[in-house]
């Protein structure tokens, strides 16, 4: 049943994609109902699968099916599907958020010129995302991985008339490809050693030491590079903020909840083969990204940019969790984060939507509808949006009673425990708690700037309205899902994440011989749990308090502090000049190199070297001609006039090009031949 259902879940959105591409424009309502029908059916199936998983309550549940895709005798590629608890939860997340996005978009993109195309791409995305989730081997994962990249490319570039959108889509794809190179090298290293692409075989192969040491570390890091690209980890983080050029529901679906989480999902899946060294790389990349991105989010004015950097930061958290060994916590955070971050994006979408309409009413096309400095005091006007976003903000800030608290706490506990065992890596918890503090701060900054205080553009405030029901529906649903209760059932302890999730998603031992066992890690995390909890509650409240003093009470002036810390402020606001430096030291040199190479190829190599041969031949023939004339003819004329005359006339007749001369020569030849033959 599970395999069948998951196949339906996989292919229904693809069917919708095909229908939309070919017939979308001709269908009533541009066919959005086709896509919605497909995704809702997928959702229903996912819910059924989820329900039977809960009722089965088997942590070791696993079903696999595969088929031979390429068969050259020895060389075979088998593709297949793997359904376990992880997969089922992930499928539910993807289909749920995707359904919300579909519904939300019907209103958000009403009247868009490429409305049907948009829904088609959503279908393509859902298909490929589910493909990643269901893959039981690296090759099909890689394939869907790239397809996800393409759908992201298409959706970010949905408004391709804008240069920034077109640039962003290209940037997203190329940056992801950098990661994918690593991914592919990792695949090759593993296949070379083990001879299979399937996860099961790989884990067994690693356990039986078919691949060890540096090679395994490199393979792990290679695969992780793929995750870095997709999950927008430092230094490949540059594409995600730009990806906000896409429509906001897309940002919610792909660049907050699901696609970027694919990197984490991959890291979770391959966790068993990561060596301690590889895990350290993972942990540091994740931890640094968490803090680094959070520090950028503080100063952003664009509401979606804040959320984008917050997403990068939260993804860093998850990666950090994988690196420190508590990979189920990473997956838990992935789950809760998907819900509240998608909700935050929908909320921002709702705000932008109404700003956009208000500005439209005023015929103001210059003001940026996404700039928080133009907002303020929307609380009364958009109550549903406000409350729903508020719940999610509490969740992301890590306030007790909310989902984010549980998952973040699990991660921080794991990190803390890791540092307790390896004191030299004390930086990792510092990254973690630091990021938690900043997160609480900037998330409330965003809330306060948008919904509280006085309106910054009072002339607009009258035109700000709550969004229609089809948009607020998802907001209410996901806002509700920010409460902790959904993740700890059937237990009711807001301090502990113990519940169906921890029962069903149980960490397994790493396949790498010598790595600490899952039991050891979870005991350590349990041990550090209380300290981590108090610390995280403390930093969350400090962050919220600071934000409150800055933006509500205004006892501390944001302007004054930004002047005082001018250098840091400017760095943060300009994202540490990453785009500029990449452009200066990476893109431009590459382009210059390309130009140079093309020039060498065409202007130098071809024109002088290759054509040089032609010229050489030409020259040689001319020299020969000159020699013929000057050397032979002239010298002989100067020498013996008589012979010259004779030879000259003879030569002249030879070179006439007249038919009769040729007949003569032919006959001469014939005679010579006959003479040879006869005598």
């Amino acid at each position, binding site marked *: 049943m599970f395999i069948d259902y998951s196949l339906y879940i996989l292919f229904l959105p693809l069917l919708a994609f095909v229908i939309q591409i070919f017939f979308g424009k001709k269908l009533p309502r541009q066919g959005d109902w086709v896509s919605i029908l497909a995704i809702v059916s997928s959702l229903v199936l996912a819910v059924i699968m989820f329900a039977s998983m809960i009722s089965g309550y088997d942590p070791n549940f696993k079903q696999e099916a595969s088929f031979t895709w390429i068969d050259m005798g020895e060389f075979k590629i088998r593709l297949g599907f793997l359904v376990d608890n992880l997969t089922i939860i992930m499928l539910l997340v993807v289909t749920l958020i995707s359904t919300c996005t579909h519904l939300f978009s019907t209103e958000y993109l009403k009247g868009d010129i490429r409305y049907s195309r948009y829904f088609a791409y959503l279908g393509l995305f859902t298909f490929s995302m589910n493909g990643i989730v269901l893959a039981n081997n690296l090759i099909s994962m890689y394939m869907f991985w790239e397809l996800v990249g393409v759908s992201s490319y298409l959706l970010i570039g949905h408004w391709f008339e804008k240069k920034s959108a077109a640039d962003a889509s290209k940037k997203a794809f190329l940056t992801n490809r950098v990661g994918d190179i690593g991914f592919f090298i990792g695949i090759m290293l593993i296949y070379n050693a083990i001879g299979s692409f399937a996860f099961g075989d790989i884990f067994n192969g690693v356990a039986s030491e078919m691949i060890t040491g540096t090679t395994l570390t490199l393979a792990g890091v290679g695969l992780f590079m793929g995750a870095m690209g997709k999950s927008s980890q430092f230094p490949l983080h540059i594409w995600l903020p730009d990806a906000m050029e896409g429509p906001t529901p897309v940002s919610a679906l792909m660049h907050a909840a699901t696609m970027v989480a694919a990197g984490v999902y991959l890291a979770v899946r391959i966790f068993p083969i990561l060596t301690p060294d590889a895990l350290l790389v993972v942990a540091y990349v994740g931890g640094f990204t968490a803090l680094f991105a959070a520090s950028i989010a503080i100063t952003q004015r664009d509401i979606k940019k804040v959320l984008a950097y917050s997403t990068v930061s939260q993804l860093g958290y998850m990666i950090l969790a994988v690196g420190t060994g508590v990979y189920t916590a990473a997956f838990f955070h992935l789950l809760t984060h998907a819900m509240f971050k998608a909700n935050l994006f929908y909320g921002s979408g709702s705000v932008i939507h109404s700003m956009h309409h208000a500005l439209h009413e005023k015929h103001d096309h210059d003001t940026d509808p996404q700039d928080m400095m133009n907002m303020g005091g929307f609380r009364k006007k958009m109550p549903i949006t406000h409350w729903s976003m508020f719940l999610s903000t509490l969740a992301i800030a890590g306030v007790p009673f909310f989902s984010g608290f549980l998952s973040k706490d699990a991660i921080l506990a794991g990190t803390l425990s890791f540092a307790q065992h390896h004191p030299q890596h004390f930086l990792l918890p510092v990254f973690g708690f630091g990021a938690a503090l900043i997160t609480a701060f900037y998330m409330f900054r965003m809330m306060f700037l948008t919904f509280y205080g006085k309106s910054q553009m009072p002339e607009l405030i009258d035109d700000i309205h709550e969004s229609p029901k089809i948009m607020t529906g998802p907001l209410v649903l996901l806002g509700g899902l920010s409460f902790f209760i959904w993740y700890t059932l059937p237990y009711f302890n807001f301090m502990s994440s113990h519940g169906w999730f921890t029962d069903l998603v149980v960490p397994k031992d790493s396949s790498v011989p010598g790595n600490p066992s899952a039991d050891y890690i979870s005991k350590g995390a349990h041990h550090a749990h209380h300290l981590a909890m108090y610390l995280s509650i403390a930093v969350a409240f400090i962050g919220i308090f600071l934000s409150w003093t800055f933006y509500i009470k205004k006892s501390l002036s944001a302007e004054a502090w930004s002047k005082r810390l001018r250098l840091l402020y400017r760095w943060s606001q300009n994202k540490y000049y990453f785009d500029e430096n990449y452009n200066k030291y990476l893109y431009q040199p590459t382009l210059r190199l390309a130009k140079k190479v093309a020039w060498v190829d065409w202007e130098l190599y071809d024109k002088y070297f290759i054509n040089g041969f032609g010229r050489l031949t030409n020259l040689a023939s001319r020299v020969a001609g000159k020699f013929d004339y000057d050397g032979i003819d002239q010298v002989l004329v100067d020498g013996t006039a008589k012979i010259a005359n004779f030879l000259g006339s003879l030569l002249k007749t030879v070179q006439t090009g007249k038919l009769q001369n040729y007949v003569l020569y032919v006959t001469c030849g014939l*005679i010579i031949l006959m003479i040879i033959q*006869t005598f």
Partner: protein
Amino acid sequence: MPVAEIVFWLVAAFTIISASFVVLNNQLLYSAIALLFSLFGVAGLYIFLWADFIAGIQLIVYIGGINVLIIFGIMLTNKISSVRLSQTNVQQGVGAVIALWLMILISLVISKTPWLQIESSEPSETVSVIGTLLLSKYLLPFEAISLLLLGALIGAALLSREAT
């Protein structure tokens, strides 16, 4: 020496003398007329070779067709004021030497080769045999050559047409 023998040598001499007249004479029209005689001579030789049908064809096609064509050609390409249409030659010295050599060599080859010579009797008639052969054994070449002839005909017509 029987009469036939004498006649044979006469015909042969006639042929060769007219042929050399064709080659050596500088007046085109005279050459053409000499060619006519030479072709006559060849036809005579055919009769000595028991090939009366070929001889007939030689008369009809060569003399009646080709030679007339040549004379037409001469007249079409020259402003005719008199029959003395002179023409010039090139590389006569070398040409003569080479032609002479050629002749000597071929003659040498002929004399040196032990030719197979089968005595046979004169066929009673050649025409019907040739006809049968043409339509049986040589049907394909026959068809091919008729196609060729047709092609040449059309080609010649096309070529000599005034450029439009």
